[in-house]
């Protein structure tokens, strides 16, 4: 039973839905070469990826902006950043890249995520004491 003098105020709430907060996708990749003693510099790696993109998607695809955020020369692992619209193109170009300077090579993509923080941990390598 409601009292007549107390008016019910409609409950107000505000709902915020973020469909996709992140504009970029981050990928952790590692390059495996047939000749295990060869190394690349960061610039050479970026050149390699750009040439792979250009082989597959032409000049328009090769011009797509992406960044190499980190690169470790001793282990040949790095973190790439690309816009969401270019993720499929970049990932397929990395998959189909077969050779570097006449040698067989392949890119192993270990992690892909829209958030950089998730690349820092890997639940498969958790060590539980």
């Amino acid at each position, binding site marked *: 039973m409601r009292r007549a003098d107390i008016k019910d105020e409609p409950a107000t709430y505000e709902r915020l839905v973020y469909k996709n907060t992140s504009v970029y996708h981050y990928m952790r990749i590692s390059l495996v070469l047939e000749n295990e003693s060869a190394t690349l510099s960061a610039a050479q790696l970026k050149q390699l990826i750009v040439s792979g993109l250009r*082989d597959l998607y032409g000049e328009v695809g090769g011009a797509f902006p992406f960044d190499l955020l980190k690169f470790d020369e001793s282990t040949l692992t790095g973190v790439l950043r690309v816009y969401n619209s270019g993720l*499929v193109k970049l990932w*397929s170009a990395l998959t189909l890249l*077969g050779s570097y300077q006449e040698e067989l090579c*392949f890119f*192993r993509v270990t992690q*892909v995520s829209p958030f950089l923080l998730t690349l820092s941990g890997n639940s498969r390598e958790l060590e539980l004491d």
Partner: protein
Amino acid sequence: MAVFMDLNITYTTDKKRLQSVIETAAHLGYSTVAINYVVDLQQKKQEIGKPKCVLELFDTFPMVQGKSRPIKVLNRLTVVASDPSHFAACMTFDVDIICVAVTEKQPFFFKRSPVNGAIERGVFFEISYTPAIRDSTMRRYTIANAISLMETCKGKNVIVTSGAEKPLELRGPYDIANLGLLFGLSEGDGKAAISTNCRAVHLHGETRKTALGIVHTMKKDQPLTVRQEEEHVPPSKRAKIETV
């Protein structure tokens, strides 16, 4: 979710290379692989290479990364057929997989009626991606053939496999699911192409021997092992049992 399977690893007589390919596949996350033996019927006097017993390859199979089970290795036979029998192959042959050859531009287009007939019978179409890695002309043919296949079959009953001869030609399962997007598959279809569809092919092959899945045969060797164990029990233990 079904496990990732790669159903096409070319057989080489070099045992070490085959071992390294299988180890790389296990490391990338494939739970099952199949070694492919190719037979070309048009060449006369070709011996069908005997499928090597899987146990001869490894003493202990490499563990699949992310799971605790060792990788499972199957054997598979591919028969090369001539061009006019394409229509017959879809409708009548008792096969599991029809490989879409990517080494040349297909002179014919896939017609809808044999493709639909094959889908109803449970036959799958296979696209191999390693030629796309080796050569840029192959890449164009692979993508062209894949797209024309997708238009006729609408993405159903498709599997994507590697044709890897070397360990550096393998790619991880999520990379292949992404390639499916290039070929014209939807995202769900791309992932299914390497997991659920491959598992369906495996079951289709196993049930071919079993009269529509009703009868199942198994090797019977149990009585022998029991007898052997009894012999191996050392005399002192045997004596204890008797007294008790």
